[in-house]
Structures are given as C-alpha cells and as structure tokens.
C-alpha cells in the first residue's frame, strides 16, 4: 500500500480544494431547494421544452419540484464536475510523473508497473468516491437544515451514477495519457475531450437521437432524472460504464507495460 498512500498524499491538497468548492456549492443548492418547493414557475416554463431540456431545467413530469431541481443542479452538474476532476487525477497518475522526471525515480525502485498503475487508478477512484459521498452528505444536511423533504436514496444513486461515469472517463483518460508525456498538453486535451463529449451528448439528446445512436458516448449512460425517479441505479447502464472502465484499465495496464520512459 506504500504506492497508494504516497500518491493519495500527493493528491491531498487538490482533494481538499475540490471538496471545499463542491460542499459549499451543494449546500447553496440545497438551501435554494425550499423556494422550488413553493413555486411552480419553472414547471410552467419547462412544459413546452423537449424532455432533455426539461431534465436540465428540472421540470420533468413525474418528479417533484425539489427532486427535479436537485437532479437538474446536482445530478447534471456533478456529471460534468466529477469527470473534470477525474481527468486531472488521471493525467497526474503517469503523465505528470514522466513530465517532471519523477518517473525515473519511481520506476527505478523495485515497483511493478501493473501494481503502480492499479494503485494510481485506485487513488483516482477513491478521491472521486470521497468527493461524491461528501456532496451527498452535504446535500442531505443542507436539505434537512432547510426542512425540505427530498428523495435522499434517489440522490445517492444519482451521484453514484455520476461517480461511475467519472471513473469511466478517468480510466479512458488514463489510457490515452500513456501516449502523452506533456502534462499541461495532456490536461488541456483531456478537458477538451470531456467537454466535447458532454456537449455532443446534450445536443444529441435535445435533437431526440436514440440512446443507440449515442451509445459511443459515456455521458449517454447517465440519466439523473430517471435514477431519482426510480430510486435505484439503472443496472444496465451501470454495467456498460463498469465494463468500459474495466476494459480501459486493462488496456492501460498493457500499454504501460510497454511504455518507454524517455528522459
């Protein structure tokens, strides 16, 4: 576990910053939920919009105003925020070590490359899980403090689905990062790629393109509104993300085993 804890400590400051920003934002959203409980203005505005936009606005039929508001702000928001954090974590796993030459120090110790990569992936998954759980706890505390009743179990699964999406995007980024030795370039490329996939998914949903037509995109397999409505994880979508994540990790292990570490 030495490798795991060493990298976990290296990421600690970044995690604190992300936690602070996310928890403050979540509590702000939770405190605003009470006004949604008492207003149907958004519902009226959203009724004419396509379902994808209604989901973004939190006005889907079948969802209470509070659930609609929370899934729109937190579910959809965290579906972008967590993958962004995942990109940064994935790029710091190997690419930053190579860019700063610390890979020379690390890989001339008796460290197995597979073990190193799995530990780095583990730190990424753990940090994302800590952030996700903290957001859920902040949401529950914030809503309870505002005396708002929400679908707390549904919110948990909604955020769990965002976590799974982030782990998948992080795993894909980790795989791609093995061909990039410049950390700054890698971060920019990963964020641009993730942002592009998010926008493409949004555009295709608004355009009414079927799920099959969007199946190449990891964002397809996240539907915050449906998860809150159902109160559990959509297991089929979760399985697709889990398989994509596992496959990316396996390919990354193979690629890292062959990677040349240039000076």
């Amino acid at each position, binding site marked *: 576990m*030495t*490798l795991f804890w*060493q990298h976990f400590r*290296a990421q600690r400051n970044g995690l604190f910053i992300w936690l602070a920003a996310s928890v403050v934002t979540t509590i702000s959203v939770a405190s605003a939920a009470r006004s949604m409980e008492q207003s149907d203005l958004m519902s009226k505005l959203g009724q004419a919009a396509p379902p994808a936009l209604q989901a973004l606005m939190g006005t889907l039929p079948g969802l209470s105003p509070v659930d609609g508001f929370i899934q729109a702000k937190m579910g959809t928001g965290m579906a972008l925020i967590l993958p962004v954090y995942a990109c940064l974590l994935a790029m710091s796993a190997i690419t930053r070590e190579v860019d*700063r*030459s*610390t*890979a*020379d*120090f690390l*890989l*001339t*110790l*008796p*460290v*197995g490359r597979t073990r190193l990569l799995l530990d780095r992936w583990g730190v990424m998954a753990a940090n994302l899980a800590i952030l996700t759980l903290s957001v859920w706890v902040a949401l529950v505390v914030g809503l309870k403090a505002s005396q708002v009743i929400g679908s707390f179990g549904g919110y948990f699964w909604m955020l769990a689905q965002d976590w799974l999406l982030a782990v998948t995007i992080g795993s894909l980024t980790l795989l791609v990062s093995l061909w990039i030795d410049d950390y700054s370039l890698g971060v920019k490329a990963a964020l641009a790629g993730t942002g592009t996939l998010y926008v493409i998914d949004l555009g295709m949903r608004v355009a009414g393109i079927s799920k099959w037509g969007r199946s190449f995109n990891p964002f397809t397999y996240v539907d915050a509104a449906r998860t809150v409505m159902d109160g559990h994880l959509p297991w089929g979508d979760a399985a697709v993300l889990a398989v994509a994540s596992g496959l990316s990790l396996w390919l990354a292990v193979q690629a890292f085993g*062959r990677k*040349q*570490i*240039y*000076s």
Partner: protein
Amino acid sequence: MNAMELKQLSHLYKNGRGVREVDLAVETGEVFGFLGPNGAGKTTLIRTVLGLLRPTAGEGRVLGLDIARQNRELRRGVGYLPSDPALYDFLTGQQNLDFALAVRGVRDRSRARALAERLDVDLKRRLKTLSRGNKQKVSILIALAHDPELLILDEPTSGLDPLMQEAFQDLVREEQGRGKTVFMSSHVLGEVEVLADRVGIIRDGRMVTVDHVDHLKKTRVKYVSCEFKSDRPDLEKVAGIRNLSLDGRKAQFTFVGDLDPLLGALAGHGLADLTVADPPLEEVFRSFYEEGSGQA
C-alpha cells in the same frame, strides 16, 4: 559472475540514434567508468539496463537477472543516481528517503542515518527549496541507503562542491572495498581516472573500447618531447602526430599509434633528448573522438 553483462544490446530511437550492439561485461567488485560526450548514448544505455527503455535488440543480465524479463527483481539490488535529481519536489528529503526505503522494504534505517550524517544532507527541507547540489546529495543518499550490490551513477558529482566530490569519491572507494560494483558515467575524466579500474568509451551509440585505465593510457596516446642535435625532421608528415609545437630544435606533440615508426622517423636526425610520457585520460578520450571525426 559479472555484475552486468550485455550482449549486442541495442536501443534505437525512431530517428535512428540510440545505442547499437553493445557488448560489455562489468565484473563484480570493480568500478567501471563509462565515458562519452553528450548524445553519445550513455544515458540511453543506462535507461535500457534499468528497464525505463526496452531493448530493440540483444540481451543483458544485471546481477544475474534478465534486464527485459526480470527488471523489477534486479532493481532491488541496484542503486541508481540519475544525472538530474528527479525526486518529489513537494516532499522533504526525509519523506523522499522514507518512501524509497518503504518501497524497497528496508526497515533498518541505521545505514541511511549514517550516510546522511556523512554527506551532511539537509533532510528536513522540501526539495524545491534546496540547491541543485543539495538535491544531488539527497539523490546520492537514496541511491546508497539500501546497500545495493550494484551502483549505477549517471554524472554523480555534477552540482557537488569540491569537498563533497572528495567525500563522494571516498564513498565509492569504500563501496568497492565492501565488494560492491560501481558503474559510473561521467564527463569528469579526472574523477573516472582516479576511481575506475576499467573504462568503456562510447561514440555515436557504439562502444569503441573497453580497457583498463592504465593500459589504455600506456598504449593509446603518448606525450612526446624531443630535441635534435641539428635540423629537426619534417614532423608534420609523420602519421599519428598531433598538437605539434615547435621551438627551434625542440618539438612537443601527442602521438597516437605504434611507437616503432615514430622512433624510426626520429632516429636518423640525431636526437639529443627524448621524453615519452603517459597522458591523462582526457587525452586518451579525445583521441578516440578525433579518430571518429576523421582528424587522426
């Protein structure tokens, strides 16, 4: 058993540069100097041996272990000092040391403490606040702290002040005295000359010679100083003469090659005095490079 044995080992980059077909055997317990200018392939060879780069051809064994298939195991017995200190800047020297020892499974820190005291290393400060020389000292400490069988040192004294260079040389001698093997690449030829039993010289990715330092100095290049009783011969025409300096009947030059033809050329002109001396290693090294660039 040789501590390092390379057979036709190559690592070629896409641009065709790299190291080619290197044959080398470093004996257990010797200090081996590895010489070559920047870009000759020294660091590429070291990185290939350590598994950072994969061989494109050939094979190698270090401490009896295959460099391609058993690299993780062989790194247990190797201490590596890179040319540029590449430690974690946000950690202190002590944290870097603790991490390296923990990964290596070393619990006894007495050797590390003794070395830190001897090298006068400041382990309490974050590395980013240290000078290059002090970072280098932390790197040396980490390379030696687990008592490796083989030390691979890439430009070990760059950044060290003269006093610390001496302390480092003492350390290398002590390690050799304890039966450890040292493979050391350096630009500082005087340092290699003092420490190394044998040297290998690499040029354009190929090992051009491997020899004992003393033998190389005796056979390769000579400093020649001579004085003639009457007119001196036309020395410019004698093959192997370089850096010719003339002063009346006196001549000084360096000579590369077999001495017999030189003595034959000088003998018929009434030699009044002749001195033939071994040059420093630097001159030997230069002779290989001048030969390679067609100046011989």
